[in-house]
């Protein structure tokens, strides 16, 4: 069959199919959301397995803080030379609706008040993250996960966004980092508040701890978790508004400084489910600690 015939044949097929059967209703809700509910149920089952695997012994890679300080970033990276401590284990939230966001609620917008700029030097830079990273406009953080400390206790704040090449033939990644100087004496309580909330699980919020440790007065936590989606409650059942979105989060605290680094993926095709390599997430935590403690981070591996 010559080319024009094939073109005609395909266009005829298209027209006939369009007439023969309405492919989809105009509304997305009954189809996509029903599938999302099924997937959520499966994810909840898988999440339980993930937690079980952590309890069974995922490798512990970081150590307790040696006394005296004065350590270098290379010592920080070595990690193995320090005593090992167990990773924290996520536990069920006391309130299973802790992460529910009602479907009627507008997207959360975290409005960060303008900082003094003094914390800028403590933020990660594109050069810290290796090849392929560039700074991106920060703007307001829309849809930010609840989990930041109460902004009433901020003394200063700085936010930065970094991203990989969005046209690259590989997965694309975005980092949003928010560093907060808490009011004097409130750093420890804020760390406890933020980590307690992050490590608490619900059907809406599954967590896997990838790394945790303390070094030179700084402590950090690295998790892979699911962002809660809006939910509708129907006769006691929780109906999510969309499938879970995965995010990697690094939290570092030193004194009254607290920094939260969120890593998000985006892209199409085979890259849409790209996983952030755990060693890279761990290296990110070390680089964040180094920046926060005024050291130059070690070079990061290139993120594929």
């Amino acid at each position, binding site marked *: *069959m*010559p*080319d024009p015939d*094939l*073109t005609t*044949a*395909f266009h*005829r*097929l*298209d027209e*006939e*199919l*369009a007439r*023969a*059967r*309405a*492919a*989809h209703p*105009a*509304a*997305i809700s009954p*189809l*996509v959301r029903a*599938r*999302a509910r099924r*997937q959520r149920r499966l994810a909840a089952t898988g999440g339980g397995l993930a937690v079980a695997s952590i309890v069974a012994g995922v490798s512990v890679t970081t150590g307790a803080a040696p006394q005296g300080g004065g350590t270098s970033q290379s010592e920080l990276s070595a990690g193995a030379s320090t005593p090992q401590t167990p990773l924290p284990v996520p536990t069920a939230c006391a309130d299973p609706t802790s992460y529910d966001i009602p479907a009627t609620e507008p997207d959360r917008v975290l409005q960060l008040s303008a900082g003094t700029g003094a914390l800028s030097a403590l933020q990660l830079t594109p050069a810290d993250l290796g090849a392929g990273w560039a700074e991106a406009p920060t703007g307001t953080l*829309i*849809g930010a996960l609840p989990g930041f400390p109460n902004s009433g206790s901020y003394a200063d704040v700085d936010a930065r966004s970094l991203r990989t090449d*969005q046209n690259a*033939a590989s997965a694309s990644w*975005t980092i949003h980092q928010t560093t907060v100087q808490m009011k004097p004496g409130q750093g420890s309580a804020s760390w406890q508040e933020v980590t307690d909330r992050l490590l608490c699980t619900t059907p809406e919020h599954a967590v896997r701890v990838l790394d945790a440790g303390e070094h030179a007065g700084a402590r950090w936590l690295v998790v892979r978790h699911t962002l809660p989606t809006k939910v509708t409650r129907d006769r006691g059942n929780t109906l999510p508004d*969309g*499938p*879970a*979105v995965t995010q990697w989060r690094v939290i570092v605290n030193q004194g009254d400084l607290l920094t939260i680094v969120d890593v*998000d993926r*985006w*892209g*199409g*095709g*085979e890259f*849409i489910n790209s996983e952030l390599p755990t060693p890279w997430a761990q290296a990110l935590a070390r680089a964040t600690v180094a920046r926060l403690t005024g050291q130059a981070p070690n070079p990061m591996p290139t993120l594929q």
Partner: protein
Amino acid sequence: MTEAEFEQLYAACAPRLVRAVYAVTGDMNEAQDVVNEAFMRAWAARRSLGRVDQPEAWLRTVAVRLAVSRWRRTRTAAAAWLRKDIAEAVPEVSPDSVALVAALRQLPDTQRVAVVLHYFYDLPLARIATETNSSLSAVKSRLSRARTTLAVLLADPAPQEPSRA
């Protein structure tokens, strides 16, 4: 991308995407499933989808890859169903279109995808190369082979000569 924009994208793209995936899989139920799956992924990535130049191309890439992946996984199961003589949901289309879909199912996955993107979506070869993560020469080769095969499969049977008894 807001929820309203996402709904618009769905209304604008989903029906034709289902028909294109049907051309790839030859199964309407499977096509609808695959397109739903693609939109579910788009929904999950909707915050960043608004920054993508061509959301329809993004969805098409995801849907076609899902279709091929599921096609490969379920080929054996599909064969078992057919052996059991369970009727498939076949849209009412002309015999020519039925023949076209049947012929497409006999092509290798990569050729079938290239043909559908080129003839169904009228995409240029360079665009197909991008969406299928292939080289331009590979796309040309696949289309050429597919055309040769389809020409044989879709050719009118030669009239039989009357027997000289």
